[in-house]
């Protein structure tokens, strides 16, 4: 336990700001997960690996001399097709099956992609430089890397764009219809197969965007996907499926929680705190529901 944060309140401002910026980035990944969870009823353990893969695309643009920020445009396009391919080759076989099957199958995809990334991209830990500089606030006592601010802004822009797309476009409406009732949608002439493929593609594309942002704010390594998967779970479980403002809010909440946990419990318990929060939230909701003699469905 460390109470430095209470002695130096300015750290609270720093922690909150860091948490909010981080949380918006998580929310972007989580939104993809919520989307495909809601539409296809698939829990995708390979979410984090898709993020890292997207990050490597940005990194390779960077090594080729292009500013990695352009990754947010290129990466989603490539990742959309990666997602589409994954759907067509594996996911479509687990869509209408038990959730446990989808968890295990995507876990298989996850370790397979980790390994392939290790071969293709190399085992080195890499970073892409954005050279965006830093914003200093409150007489230099709070520092915000512009790369993080950029990430948060991009997350917001993509999220808003996606919401509009879901509302306005034909495909977006078909996706929403399918998420509400796949059978009814099918009867009304929606090609659910296509919708599923597109949904998984969009999910992968969102991961691609998030990955490019991670390439310029954190580090990339083939084996660091899992924490992102788990965080998106948490956010989705707190926020529920398909509700973007709630996803954004709980993403920010998680980000801030993590930063504060880091200060108060110590960095070594940061990840444990995230996982325990997941457990606590689930168990709390289970007890709350059990008063109504119901359970989490």
């Amino acid at each position, binding site marked *: 336990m460390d109470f430095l944060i209470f002695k130096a309140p300015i750290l609270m401002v720093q922690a909150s700001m860091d948490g909010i910026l981080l949380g918006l980035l998580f929310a972007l990944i989580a939104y993809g997960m919520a989307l495909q969870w809601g539409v296809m009823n698939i829990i995708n353990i390979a979410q984090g690996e898709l993020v890292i893969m997207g990050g490597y695309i940005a990194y390779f643009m960077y090594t080729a001399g292009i500013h990695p920020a352009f990754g947010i445009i290129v990466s989603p396009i490539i990742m959309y097709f990666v997602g589409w391919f994954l759907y067509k080759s594996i996911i479509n076989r687990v869509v209408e099956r038990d959730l446990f099957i989808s968890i295990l199958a995507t876990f298989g995809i996850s370790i397979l992609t980790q390994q392939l990334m290790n071969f293709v991209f190399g085992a080195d830990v*890499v*970073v892409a430089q954005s050279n965006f500089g830093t914003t200093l606030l409150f007489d230099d006592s709070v520092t915000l890397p512009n790369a993080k601010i950029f990430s948060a802004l991009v997350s917001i822009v993509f999220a808003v764009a996606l919401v509009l797309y879901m509302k306005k476009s034909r495909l977006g409406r078909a996706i929403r219809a399918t998420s509400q009732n796949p059978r009814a949608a099918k009867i009304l002439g929606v090609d659910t197969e296509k919708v599923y493929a597109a949904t998984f593609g969009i999910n992968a594309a969102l991961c691609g965007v998030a990955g490019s942002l991670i390439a310029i704010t954190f580090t990339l390594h083939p084996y660091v996907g899992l924490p992102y998967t788990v965080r998106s779970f948490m956010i989705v479980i707190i926020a529920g499926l398909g509700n973007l403002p709630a996803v954004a809010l709980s993403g920010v909440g998680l980000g801030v929680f993590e930063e504060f946990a880091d200060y108060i419990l110590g960095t070594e318990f940061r990840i444990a705190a995230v996982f325990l929060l997941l457990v606590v939230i689930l168990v709390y909701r289970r007890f709350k529901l059990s008063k109504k003699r119901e359970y989490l469905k």
Partner: protein
Amino acid sequence: MRNFKLSIALLSGLLLVFSSLAFAKVEGDTITLGAAVSLTGKYSTNGKNTKNGYELAIKRINEMGGVKVGGKSYKFKIVYYDDESNGGRAAQLAERLIKQDGIKYMLGPYSSGITKAIAPVTEENKIPMVEANGASRSLFTKGYKYLFAVLSAANQYLEVAIDLAVERNGGKGVRIAMAFEQDAFSQDVKIGVVEAAKRTGSEIVIDDNLPKELNDMAATLAKVKALKPDVLVVSGHTKGALTAIRQLADMRVNVPMLAMTHCDAGKLSKQHGEKAEYALCAAQWHKSLTYKDNFFGNGMDYDRDYTAEYGSPPPYQSAESSAALLVWKDAFERANSFDTEKVRDALAKTNMQTFYGNIKFSDTGQNIAKPMVLFQVRCDGGKCTNKVVAPTKWASTKIVHPIPSWSQR
């Protein structure tokens, strides 16, 4: 159905028996060594560096006539397994190498934690192991007789940096901020720093342990910013080094001295360029050291050959791994025998110079003939290199201290 069970049970038994190819320790003109290295998982970066080091040395030794035992020339060969960056797996593989594959001579894995998991196995089976990447001091207090490490112990890594900071402070104690990963190696480095702090009357103001799945150090660095320590020490393998530099620069954290490990393995100077400038890095080896041997020449030559072979300059992990094979060769030739006991005794009496440094083992198998080096990342017109600053004997440049603040860089 009963018959199915029966046949499966039988099949299992048979497969288990034949599931492994047999390797003999010395067969024809090859001496087979065994190694479990991390080709996958979180240590895959350095596992690969380790393997590259082994491979390069084998190639060189075999090209240059191999190992001469009893008037005959033998070639080295290594049986590798992938330990998946997992100590439990590594211990199992070590046992497998020894028991099933008949390996009599072992090379070390990457990382202290995994070496700690393997050492009890080799020790019990009385199989000598020359390891190059397990620096944990506790390896050398257990009385292991068959373990030989060509590298200096982990606690020495950053002690020098603390001493340097104290010296710069006019001999008075300094305020230290520590961020160490929760793994065997980094925690051992921490022990060294804590001891140095005690010895010099320094105060530890931040003591953060980083999780293994580290991706964000913002909180630790914000504390550093608030408390303004005199020296920040970071150790968290490659990812820790890269994350620290990235976020130090991004958050504009000014600290008079920054000391860390794994700078060369993380290719800090290449990946972060000027942002990494002035970082002090502990290393087992640096190419500018003036040691030399007959196989690789001096450090510069090794650097050149390694780069030609693998496309990037060698981190010290590779150099020490190469050195391990030179030790083996030397020991075999002096023992002039393949008997493990005789080879072990020869290993214990090792006293040689390699391009990597002098090697002489203490009773506990630790290399006591070689100091750690400290280099500083220095940039000149956008091109950054690692310059040795300590020990003074090899210092190619004077240390810059304190590090200029970000606004002046």
